[in-house]
């Protein structure tokens, strides 16, 4: 977000609101700034005791960012800033409840196991979504099936809770424990919620429990950017809140500081009832590009970057007096499969790029396993040991995990290993780790350590070689001294928190639309503007698909390109049905030259054929 020196009257009104307020903040309207402004207003102008302020976010990263922006000093740190989950956990632990949370890795493992055991024809992801949906929409027991029960029993076996359980326990507790409810209600006079559109029903019900008639509620978000319905987010939550609390004030932030005029004008057509006004005076550019197939589409994108930057070698050189960097470009797509050809073409061109989100190198199974082992070596505690055992790479028999976990009480790795009976597979791992610990203690350097991990666990093979090589070369920058591992682990957790997006490096960004939420770029290309991609018609909600397109388009500051092909994966495609909504002034349609050539050649050929028929 650019620095906004002057607040708009809408922002001002939201920040200084006396009662409860719903702030609908469209893309680029200064949402975070307004939220921060509100907190400062409460503290500095209304002199609210920071103890009374609760700020709820949807990701740890967002919570962290708010803390950083507030530049929290000791006095202000009395503000509670966290996610719904961290808030729930904190309160429940405070109340003396013992809750052990299952790690995400373990949860994945359990799910995969059920899929395998029960021979289910579903993906781990959709299974997880089902479980989550079931738990969040508790009331609807028709969704309950034996698989979910199985999942639950496996969790309970180890006395574990998942994140959804955490919220429902909290919800039940609030409903039953009047004292606790009153305590929270009287403590938090001011509750602020960021990204309110991501709230699910259960979270909303929790919210209702912690507010009373004296509470001041400040929720901010954009219903048009709700793209997590599949995770249970409730796009209707804004109107739900309005229905339940009719006195709540409605404020819309309508000035878009981010995007040039045409981009705002065209994306407004998706939601004509809540239009934004561009603050920028430049018109910018919105283009719709038709191309032949996925290859020509990727070539077109590579060419766009190349010419914008003014050529990469002598043959393409053109003058460029604008400030353009590789990192000013983002290529967005519906799913990662779509980016395969593009990645290939970018590699050929030599243009530096980074894939952010779930397709990063560190998310690869083998690399993530090595990182787990490094974490364990650096800090030899049971929790880190579990991380190794739970890692997908080992594909360990679940029963072994149970045996290890059954060994309660003694939390020390050293005690544990001498007490576990020789379980097949397990002993082997322990022995390997033993040797690695020895090397680590002998001061073997980071890279060498990684090489021996690869060696011992037979990680390197033809298909993983390139990843491992790349990983090793990245490690070199952390040196080979006593602090190397520590430095590296810090780096990884930093990247992880940032969705594997290294903002400082000057590279073109490749991302799914989902992962690009909240980011902004001068030039944005949205690939695959076709039916079945944007929108995904089967099984999807067309409304959610529209919001997804809205999120994609509104990432662009100066230029926005939507590309579509005639043929993809050897099948004929159809341009996105959303074209009918966004078409009109401000959008320029263009046919890719490669397609033009192709059409001309075809016409020529047809003409010749038809002429031949006369003979």
């Amino acid at each position, binding site marked *: 977000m650019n620095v906004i020196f002057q607040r708009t009257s809408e922002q001002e009104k939201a920040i200084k609101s006396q009662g409860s307020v719903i702030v609908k903040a469209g893309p680029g309207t200064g949402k975070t700034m307004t939220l921060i402004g509100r907190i400062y207003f409460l503290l500095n102008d209304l002199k609210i005791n920071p103890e009374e302020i609760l700020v709820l976010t949807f990701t740890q990263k967002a919570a962290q960012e708010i803390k950083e922006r507030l530049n929290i000093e000791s006095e202000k740190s009395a503000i509670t800033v966290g996610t719904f989950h961290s808030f729930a956990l904190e309160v429940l632990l405070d109340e003396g409840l013992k809750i052990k949370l299952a790690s995400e890795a373990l949860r994945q493992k359990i799910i995969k196991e059920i899929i395998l055991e029960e021979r289910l024809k579903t993906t781990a992801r959709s299974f997880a979504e089902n479980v989550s949906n079931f738990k969040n929409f508790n009331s609807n027991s028709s969704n309950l099936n034996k698989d979910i029960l199985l999942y639950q029993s496996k969790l309970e076996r180890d006395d574990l809770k998942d994140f959804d359980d955490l919220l429902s326990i909290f919800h039940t507790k609030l409903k039953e424990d009047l004292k606790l409810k009153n305590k929270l209600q009287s403590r938090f006079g001011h509750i602020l919620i960021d990204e309110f559109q991501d709230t699910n029903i259960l979270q909303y019900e929790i919210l209702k429990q912690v507010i009373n008639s004296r509470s001041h509620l400040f929720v901010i978000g954009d219903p048009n950017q709700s793209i997590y319905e599949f995770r249970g987010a409730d796009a209707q939550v804004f109107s739900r809140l309005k229905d339940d609390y009719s006195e709540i004030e409605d404020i819309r932030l309508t000035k878009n500081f981010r995007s040039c005029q045409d981009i705002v004008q065209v994306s407004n057509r998706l939601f004509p009832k809540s239009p934004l006004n561009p603050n920028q005076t430049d018109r910018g550019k919105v283009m719709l590009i038709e191309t032949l197939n996925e290859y020509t589409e990727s070539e077109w994108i590579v060419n766009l970057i190349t010419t914008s930057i003014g050529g990469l070698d*002598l043959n393409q050189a053109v003058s460029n007096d604008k400030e353009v960097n590789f990192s000013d470009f983002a290529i967005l797509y519906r799913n990662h499969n779509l980016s395969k050809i593009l990645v290939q073409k970018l590699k050929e061109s030599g243009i530096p790029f980074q894939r952010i989100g779930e397709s990063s190198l560190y998310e690869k199974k083998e690399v993530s396993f090595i990182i787990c082992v490094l974490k364990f070596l650096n800090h030899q505690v049971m929790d880190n040991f579990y991380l190794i055992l739970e890692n997908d790479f080992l594909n360990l028999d679940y029963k072994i995990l149970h045996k290890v976990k059954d060994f309660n009480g003694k939390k020390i790795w050293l005690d544990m290993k001498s007490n576990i009976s020789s379980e097949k597979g397990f002993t082997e791992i322990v022995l390997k780790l033993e040797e690695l610990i020895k090397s680590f203690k002998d001061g073997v350097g980071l890279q060498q350590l990684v090489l021996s991990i690869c060696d011992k666990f037979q990680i390197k093979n033809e298909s993983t070689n390139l990843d491992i090589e790349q990983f090793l070369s990245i490690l070199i920058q952390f040196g080979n001294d006593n602090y190397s591992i520590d430095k590296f682990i810090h780096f990884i957790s930093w990247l992880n928190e940032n969705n594997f997006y290294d903002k400082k490096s000057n590279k073109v960004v490749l991302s799914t639309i989902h992962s690009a939420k909240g980011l902004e770029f001068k030039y944005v290309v949205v690939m695959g503007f076709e039916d079945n991609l944007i929108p995904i018609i089967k099984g999807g909600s067309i409304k959610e698909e529209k919001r997804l397109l809205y999120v994609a388009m509104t990432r662009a500051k100066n230029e926005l390109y939507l590309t579509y092909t005639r043929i993809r994966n050897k099948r004929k495609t159809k341009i996105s049905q959303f074209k009918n909504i966004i078409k009109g002034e401000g959008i320029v349609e263009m046919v890719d030259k490669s397609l033009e050539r192709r059409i001309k050649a075809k016409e020529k050929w047809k003409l010749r054929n038809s002429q031949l028929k006369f003979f």
Partner: protein
Amino acid sequence: MQLIVDLHLHSHFSRATSKSLTLEGLYKWGKIKGVNVIGTGDFTHPSWFSELRDKLEPAEPGLFRLKPTIAADIDKSLSESIKKQEIRFILTSEISNIYSKLGKVRKLHNLVIAPSFEDVSKINSYLERIGNLSADGRPILGLDSKELLKICLKINENILFIPAHIWTPWFAMFGSKSGFDSIKEAFDELSGEIVAVETGLSSDPWMNWRIKELQNIAIISNSDAHSPQKIGREATIFDCPFDYFQIISAIKNNDERLLGTIEFFPEEGKYHFDGHRICNVKLSADETKKLDRICPVCHHQLTVGVNFRVSELASFPVGFKPENHKKVEYIIPLPEIIAELKGVSVSTKSVSDTFIKVYNTLGNEFAILRNIPTKLISEAGFPELSLAVDLVRRNKVEIEPGYDGVYGKIRLFKDERARKNFGGQMSLL
């Protein structure tokens, strides 16, 4: 010991390069040409780097030689006259830095020279995070040149960083299209770490000496070869033993160990002078300035060349020579001399046959062009060649500067008559 050093060239892993740009090819042509120390080029490329580690072995400090078994194989095919010369390799790479600074896209090519495989590994690992090293032997990085310099300095102070072919319009530090107006502008507080610049084919030391910032730093020349036949077409001459650290310190101190450079005539470049090809207008920098860059024929902006760019940044007049200046030797490649004597194209078989005959008889190309007394050349059976070499050594050549995309012409003879009058029948060639 006099060494002819060529630090900037490319492997077959770079775009638009010859397939024969292998270590073997470089070794062989190094002996034919008479280059003593040859840059490996492209050390950032993973496959080339692993080839370097496979086929090279450490020789003198910081330098490498081809493994004896491989070298022996090549030597078998070479004549006695060129076989004996030792060839050393030095680890080098060129990087294309593309980034925005001070409101403009900047594209600079920079040369990096390193003393060991370990240092190269470290450089590569840094750069791996920044760009895609396997796409091209000369990788593109969205990294400020200054940051690249910082990385090099951080890894090892003996790594040398040199802005490459600094006057080419599109990809160079002083390039008119996407360069800077000063070293200071490009490297800020690290300007002092720029100890040398590369002339490139489009400039010679004389042009560079006019620039204030270049008065005290080393001016070096390299071939930027894209095929092994072209290595050493420009090069730097040192007076020092085979030793990376001596070569580097000669450059850093710009001292008497750096003897000078071997140069192309810069007028040969496509954009040396200013003008309009279609209007048939060709102008020197001074003339262009008088005309305010406007073409007298079509009244549009003239295409200005490298010489104009130099005069734009220059603090000193044409012909200015700093106190601590080096020797400048202009050459015309031997095959081109032969081609002109014969009056045929350089790519013909008759030229290459004669070229082989000449070096098999007399020794490597640089020896012929620079050292062997013309009397001996003549006595060996090449009297016309000896006369031609004498002309080149005395710079008595016909120069027609290039402009607006038209290559310049450097010739021994003004025209066909002059050629015919020169040495009779050319029969001996």
